């Protein structure tokens, strides 16, 4: 094995290790932050600042009874939680954490991410279908419709960035932001991508697929033990992925003064993860038809308009 291969392998496993640990850590972070914004303390007993709560939660979720309902479609039921984790972890491969630290420098990186997040829809749709219960099915249906429609203008909102950078390669996109971070010229694109990102990870306020006050727990109603845990790990990984992408595409990725690039990347990503949690703490859930009409009647025209204006300006300035 050459030196380069060893280095690559170390990077791959380090990224895998860090992202999975971040997902576990986010369970604790979310509970602490929600508590902070609701005038409570949150988990503060186990270990310093309650940090060992993560370990306690892990022990709990791994030792719980893993129950598969007899009426479920077993192979599909088992494979569904694996898909969401697999697709999201794979999507992390194209994220440039800092110059040199990335799994693969793909020239269609952005398309790869979009493909992976589209494949993630199968997870929730399979989970809802194979559970053979009405709440799961409704949750799965909602998830499939919501994720597919928000997928459309998630892609469209990114086209502006691609036009400005002239590349689908995420590293090139970051390097193109040397002069100005893309959230200034692509502010509309940023807003649309952020909202679509929330809907993609089905986080609050767009958590209609699992809406606990209507659908018990939506598509994962029938899941227990680590299969249930994997949906949650998938959700937290999704938040991390979307935050990392927002940083990469609109906020200059690893760029920043003084501190090393990886630190800047972490700080920016952490900020957006906190925004995700703040959204959950503050906003109520819309009705389902509101969500769909908002998507198709507001977000889609907005992203198309953004595309048109960006294209027009680029054409006029002759770049």
């Amino acid at each position, binding site marked *: 094995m050459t030196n380069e291969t060893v280095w690559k392998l170390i990077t791959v496993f380090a990224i895998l290790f860090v992202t999975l640990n971040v997902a576990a850590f986010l369970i604790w972070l979310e509970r602490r932050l929600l508590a*902070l914004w609701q*005038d409570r*303390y949150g988990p503060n007993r186990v270990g310093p600042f309650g940090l060992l709560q993560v370990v306690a939660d892990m022990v709990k979720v791994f030792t719980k009874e893993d129950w598969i309902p007899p009426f479920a479609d077993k192979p599909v039921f088992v494979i569904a939680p694996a898909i969401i984790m697999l697709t999201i972890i794979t999507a992390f491969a194209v994220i440039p954490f800092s110059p040199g630290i990335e799994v693969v420098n793909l020239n269609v990186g952005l398309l790869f991410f979009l493909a992976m997040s589209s494949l993630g829809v199968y997870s929730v749709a399979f989970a809802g279908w194979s559970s053979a219960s009405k709440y799961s099915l409704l949750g799965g249906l909602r998830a499939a419709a919501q994720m597919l429609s928000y997928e459309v203008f998630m892609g469209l909102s990114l086209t502006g960035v691609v036009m400005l950078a002239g590349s689908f390669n995420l590293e090139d996109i970051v390097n193109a932001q040397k002069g100005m971070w893309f959230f200034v010229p692509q502010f509309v694109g940023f807003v649309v991508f952020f909202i679509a990102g929330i809907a993609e990870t089905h986080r609050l306020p767009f958590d209609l697929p699992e809406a606990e006050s209507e659908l018990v727990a939506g598509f994962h109603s029938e899941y227990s033990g680590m299969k249930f845990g994997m949906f949650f790990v998938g959700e937290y990984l999704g938040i991390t992925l979307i935050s990392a992408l927002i940083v990469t595409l609109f906020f200059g990725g690893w760029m920043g003064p003084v501190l090393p690039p990886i630190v800047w990347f972490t700080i920016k990503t952490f900020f957006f993860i906190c925004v995700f949690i703040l959204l959950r703490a503050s906003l109520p859930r819309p009705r389902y038809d509101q969500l769909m009409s908002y998507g198709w009647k507001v977000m889609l025209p907005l992203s198309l308009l953004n595309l048109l204006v960006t294209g027009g300006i680029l054409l006029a300035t002759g770049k």
Partner: protein
Amino acid sequence: MFSLIRTMWTILLHMFRKRETVLYPEEKPYIPPRWRGRIILSRDPDGEERCVACYLCAVACPVDCISLQAAEDGHGRRYPEFFRINFSRCIFCGFCEEACPTYAIQLTNDFEMGEYVRQNLVYEKEDLLISGPGKHPEYNFYRMAGLSIKGKDKGEAVNEEQPVDVRDLMP
């Protein structure tokens, strides 16, 4: 759209508010004096058991968690041979305290009675009986009601009034 952002800002500012949580084991909350907690059996000022084993508490108990057996001493004074409260059933409603004619059974403001073994929540008489008079320090049932002893009925002693015939009071 603006209202959504304002909502998020307001929630963010809650970060700097005072916490509502009472950190319980370190920080004890205020327990009102009439709190209905662990049940005790009190003694009268002379140090005798107040309980006359009338079974009214056991009858009043909605979950049937009190059981007792009446006995009589040589002077015809009634007392409970055993008195048992199953605190794993008790709902701390306080009906027993209300039913008690002698202020014997009382609820205290102690609520920290967790156990690892369910059987340990069954309290016997020696667990329930305290050495003091509890909430009514002056009250002594037999001083109020009189006591019949051998050769003397109620109201026959010097300066003792005849007991009220409750049937006379009926309309």
